[in-house]
């Protein structure tokens, strides 16, 4: 099988919390064909060289968002990145930046999951609606206001890209804010004022310094940087006009 295959060197950041004091790099020589993704390269290592190599993956087609890692220092989904594009150079795989490493290429996402829960990522209806009243109607215009922000697959590449999240892990961050914006923009939702408390808080949008790298690495073109910056304007408006609003705005 390996006769016609080229060999690429894959350098992998290894870390076993039970035996290693700190992460270290190990190099593997992996035979590959032109149709092999970086993920398949990692799988080859696991199957043939070291069964303890640990990484997340599921769908192999850039929709589950599990296989994000740093590939030569850039946050990417390893299933849609191909070894042929790096050959004959060595390729370096590391766990996603800015997250604690659990083992090898697997990071601890519990902080992100907490943030995701905190934005209330579901439609909170403006008013209760009985079955007899029928379905919610939405115009194509109303639909187009939020559809882009529904494409997020929670791969957290934007968090690995965001220098501000790297400096302060309390920052709600690009992905969760993009999803927050998705629900705020939905004509069926009525909880924008409730979510404003989080947007305008010290963990909120003003951590962002408009670097824009999150949108660059987003594999689904969600453009989280845009969502964050729209919400800076929203938060500033809420800050100055909250005393004029009949409801008094959020706290």
């Amino acid at each position, binding site marked *: 099988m390996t006769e016609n295959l080229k060999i690429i060197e894959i350098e992998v950041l290894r870390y076993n919390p039970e035996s290693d004091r700190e992460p270290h790099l190990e190099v593997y020589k992996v035979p590959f064909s032109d149709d092999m993704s970086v993920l398949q390269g990692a799988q080859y290592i696991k199957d043939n060289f070291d069964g303890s190599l640990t990484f997340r993956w599921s769908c192999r087609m850039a929709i589950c968002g599990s296989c994000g890692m740093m590939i030569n220092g850039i946050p990417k989904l390893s299933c849609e990145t191909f070894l042929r594009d790096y050959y004959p150079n060595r390729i370096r795989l590391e766990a996603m930046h800015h997250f604690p490493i659990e083992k090898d290429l697997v990071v601890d996402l519990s902080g992100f999951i907490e943030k995701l829960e*905190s934005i209330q990522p579901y439609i909170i209806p403006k008013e209760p609606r009985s079955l007899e009243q029928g379905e919610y109607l939405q115009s194509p215009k109303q639909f187009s206001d939020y559809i882009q922000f529904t494409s997020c697959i929670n791969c957290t590449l934007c968090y690995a890209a965001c220098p501000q999240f790297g400096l302060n892990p309390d920052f709600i961050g690009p992905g969760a804010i993009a999803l927050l914006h998705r629900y705020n923009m939905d004509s069926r939702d009525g909880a924008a004022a409730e979510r404003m408390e989080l947007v*305008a808080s*010290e963990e909120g949008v003003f951590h962002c310094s408009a670097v824009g790298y999150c949108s660059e690495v987003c594999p689904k073109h969600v453009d989280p940087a845009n969502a964050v910056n729209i919400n800076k304007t929203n*938060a500033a408006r809420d800050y100055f006009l909250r005393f004029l609003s009949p409801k008094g705005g959020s*706290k």
Partner: protein
Amino acid sequence: MKPGLKRSNAPIFWSLFGAGGMLSALFGPALVFITGIAVPFGFILPADAMSYPKMLAFAQNFIGKGFILAVIALFLWFAAHRIFHSLHEVGIHAGVGAKLICYGSAFVATVISVVVLLGLGF
């Protein structure tokens, strides 16, 4: 929603930063051209376009005062915010001290500009 959220006072500084950024993008290059090239070299504009009597008259006009104040103060608030955040980004985790120096100098310069502009009379 997370408990214990504190509202950020960033909108004040962010608005001044935004206004200053917009203004400096619109007027900055033109001001550099007029004050640094066109007038000193008598190029396009006459050399006495910014003579003392003319500038004094400009600074004594109500609209002129507003323009000078906006250009000085908002540019400085813009710069203060940008420098403060850049410090953070290059790894200098600036605390209260750097905040005071950055925003404080913009604030002091704003106050001085207001005092001087009002002192020039109308």
